[in-house]
């Protein structure tokens, strides 16, 4: 989201150079926030632990406060009762923010095809990367993180991503 000076400068050399520097910084200092409601969160803990060591990608500062985080990992089943909480926590995160839907439950509901489970969190908040698996291996979490990093590289500070996203709670 462009605010202040860069919004006035528009798409010029200054802002594109600024993009490069800022994207470089954002890429290697993602602060994840785990919205862990089920077993996928345990696999995330494994990814953060010494064997897989998510800090090799600069993302080891796991904050359980959305105000300081910019990468949200939704790890687990989201019920319709939980959906407004998820939405609220997502909105509490500062721009820019990225979302990873980890595992079958968060991505599509998985085996919980029933009245109370959200059939994919992309009906509530915009999702950047989906991970398949039940639960996925920690390596898949690292793959998703690399995918997010590659995605950040192509972004611009001028653009407001997912501006016209409309979920079921909007």
């Amino acid at each position: 989201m462009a605010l202040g000076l860069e919004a006035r400068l528009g798409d010029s050399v200054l802002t594109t150079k600024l993009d490069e520097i800022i994207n470089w910084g954002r890429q290697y200092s993602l602060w994840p926030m785990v919205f862990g409601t089920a077993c996928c969160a345990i696999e995330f803990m494994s990814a953060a632990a010494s064997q897989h060591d998510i800090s090799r990608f600069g993302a080891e500062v796991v904050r359980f406060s959305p105000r300081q985080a910019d990468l949200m990992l939704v790890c687990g089943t989201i019920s319709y009762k939980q959906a407004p909480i998820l939405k609220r926590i997502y909105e509490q995160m500062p721009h820019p923010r990225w979302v990873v839907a980890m595992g079958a439950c968060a991505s599509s509901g998985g085996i919980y095809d029933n009245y109370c489970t959200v059939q994919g969190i992309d009906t509530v908040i915009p999702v950047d990367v989906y991970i398949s698996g039940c639960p996925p291996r920690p390596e898949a979490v690292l793959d998703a993180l690399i995918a997010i990093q590659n995605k950040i590289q192509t972004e611009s500070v001028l653009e407001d991503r997912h501006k016209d996203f409309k979920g079921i709670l909007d």
Partner: protein
Amino acid sequence: MSIKVRVVERKGRTFLEQLYLVEVVKGMTVTLGHFFRNLLDNSRLYVRHYPEVKPEISPRWRGRHRLTRHEDGSVKCVACFMCQTNCPSNCIMIEAGERFDGRSEKMPVKFDIDLLECIYCGYCVEACPMDAIRMDTGIFSVTSNSRESLLIGLEQLMETPGGFSEVDYHKGGG
């Protein structure tokens, strides 16, 4: 009967220990010792350098699915719907068509697996009477930017080769 009381010697009461500074430096020496030892020689670190070093996957590991083929390249699947019926998350969608090569009466014209719905339980492999669907590709990490691209079809399932030899697969790993 009296209770046995063991008097534990209290530590940290001397002047140097009360000062804390010396103890902080002692602790930091241990920490920095570990830091510099690992910085100079990182071969003893417990980290698996993932994107470069792949993990060892056993033949019994249930990875991404694939459809096996006969020697002449035709699909082994006879579209009996066993896997689709047995699937707990309803992620398999088969459409049967007529088969003309004389092997059986039916074959799948559409075989979609929604990898985001799939919970990798392996019930489809157990249910299959023709050994047509297997999870021995050794693909352990499936990620994507879009939900639609993880709905894989018949071609993609048939193209994927098995990750292990037939002997290893039937032995189930060493």
